[in-house]
């Protein structure tokens, strides 16, 4: 199971959990599993998020690999100037 760390504001969509465990081998599978387990996250993910996997910030790479040992954070979507 991949442990996905969420920002605190999302706790109300996950029964109060800051960390959610899902079965996934890629970022895309992880996103899908998150929404299936917690439908309240659907508008959040659709609005745009970034994912940090082992310190690497992935904006749109749904095929990127994740494993049970990965450090995974769901982050707000970022952009620069």
């Amino acid at each position, binding site marked *: 199971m991949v442990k996905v760390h969420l920002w*605190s504001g999302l706790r109300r969509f996950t029964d109060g959990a800051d960390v959610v465990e899902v079965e996934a081998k890629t970022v895309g599978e992880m996103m899908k599993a998150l929404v299936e387990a917690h439908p309240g996250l659907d508008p959040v993910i659709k609005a745009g998020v970034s994912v*940090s996997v082992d*310190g690497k910030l992935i904006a749109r790479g749904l095929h990127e690999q994740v494993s049970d040992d990965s*450090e995974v*954070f769901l*982050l707000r979507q*970022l952009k*620069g100037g």
Partner: protein
Amino acid sequence: MPLDSKTTGFKYIGTRPDRPDGIDKVTGKARYGADAYASGMLHGVMVRSPHAHAKIKKIDASKALALKGVKAVVTRADFPTGLEGEDWNIQENCMAGEVALYDGHAVAAVAATSLLLAREAAKLIEVEYEVLPHVTDVDEAMKPGAPAIRAGAADYSVPEGLHPNVMRYIEYGHGDLDAGFAAADLVMENTYKTEAAHQGYIEPHACLAQLGSDGKGEMWVCTQGHWFIRRMSAAVLGIDVANLRVTPSEIGGGFGGKTTVFVEPVALALSRKAGKPVKMVMTRSEVLRATGPTSSSSIDVKMGMKKDGTMTAAKVTMRMQGGAFPMAPIDSALDCAFSCYNIPAVHHEGYDVLANRPKQAAYRAPGSPMAAFATESLVDEMCRALKLDPLKTRLKNASREGTKASFGPTFPRIGLVETLEAALAHPHYAAPLGPNQGRGVASGYWMNWGGETSVSAALGEDGSVTVSVGTPDIGGSRASMALMAAEALGIPYENVRVNVVDTGSLGVNEPTHGSRATYATGLATIEAVKQISTKLCQRAADKWGIPAEAVIWEDGCAKPSGPNAGEFPPLAIGELAAEMGGTGGPISGHFEATPSGHGGSFGTHIVDVEVDPETGYTSVLRYTVVQDAGKAIHPAYVEGQFQGGAAQGIGWALNEEYIYGADGRLQNTVFLDYRIPVASDLPMIDTVIVEVPNPGHPYGVRGVGETGITPPLPAVANAVHAAAGVRLRSLPMSPPRILAAIKAKG
């Protein structure tokens, strides 16, 4: 590491050749946004709201249309309906619908055969308004009774009970905050405010647009990202992106402000209606009133520290207004607030708030300078209270590889410690100071960006190489790309030409933003030209009758890879290129990706100022920027980015601000009143390039464009405190404000 890495032993990387576009720019040959002309071209002019908030009751263009030479007038009725989300926001910002939301908001536009005539016609367009209550201050906009600008538009994140002007709410953190504050010897808490500042690019927005009745069009435009311009314009007008070809002009500054549209869809709409090409060029006043300055902010910061300087806990609450539309950069501001430090307990809270101001746009490290102003000012105040050295205290708490970042993930290899050590060792930090002089330091962070990237490279018959990129050259990126291509191929810098090409020539490219061009376009350039060398190795192998695997590419030549491959003299790129038509045809390379190995960049600044106690005027005496570049491809341009960020930050700290009157109208709409620093205001800004290679780039590159604007706001505030004995927690620290603080101190 995604590619073969090379961080030492470079031949071209790290040299300082002349920029390839330099002669055109200094001789006036370079063509900017306003330099385009087309046969039968019309000139477009916008009609703008004189009110901060007003219902548009009626627009009568009959008198304007009666003028000979006036060919078209457009209002919101000429744009499609039904857009949603950010597309609607962009459309509404380009042309108001039912309500003008800020002073300067476009409500109509006219196209005529001359600019003078178009201006005259714009004055004849009669707009009837019903003035509504307005609010421009972020704290006022959240109070009960403040006018609701777009009731019901808040997203899922906003808890019940907040003012309808709050569009988004963010909360996150880690660790036991109460325990952290309890463990501290000193807990301090203050509120800091920053005013909106403009990017201050010298070239105003300009475009030449043509859109036919068949829905096909072209545009020449000054922009940081023409694929963004294409997508946004197409969405606003309801046309397919493939029907719009966008070519970028040279660009006279952007700093984030040219990553979106303002006049471009309107010029296309006028062209479609008039059946002629339409050119639109903003005036400086239009740029200041109606493009995208930064957010203004109001920030509460609380921090706990032990007597030895160890940070134990920190909390930030940030309120930002991003104009009359959502998406103020609270996300990145919060992420950067405590990113420099390894603090066991942190908590972040942010409010994205509407106000009757123009829609904010990105500006160099969006949000981070405001956050740094609050955090790094408070750190300085605490170091003073505990009599600690501010640099050593920062070093003691500095984030490093393996630190759990304040925003969550664990940091990979980063270079903050190295910048702090270099600043501590710099002679500037130990130089003596005179009367009324003070020294300030601060650190800052920007996470940088990768983004969608597509690059092609083509081999010429003489062995030279043309690289086609989609990221406009703002800060010398043609030179950087040419250096990386030259290094990868082993050919002279002068034999590589880099062209910034139009949207019809490559796959999607994000703009030159997020400090990404040298990193992402550079990575794609290296990969594209490596495909050329691979193909050249194949051609040599065919010629020699050996397997391609037995051939290597080295110093611009194909060579047998060892004695077992046979004895053949090296074949230079020019020889192979000259005969490529007969050995298999044209040779090119292409690479596209959304690279995610961008490494964040930290910086530490030292500044000396002198404050005149009689006038409150601040002179910047000496300034040193120390920043991690990963690997400086063209060191002169890296230094230029460092200096530019510092200069803009100094302006934001000391003078620049959006001044709104009680009527909600912007008071300072020209550069005489909106005071950006000029060369005579600044000392020569010294630079120290720290190189902690980014493992996510083949040559170790980190983006450098944005971090440099992050430390100046607090560094200058800390220096002013040291010089004048007064702490200013509200920007800008203009002479009247400093003088008032000195007098209040007594």
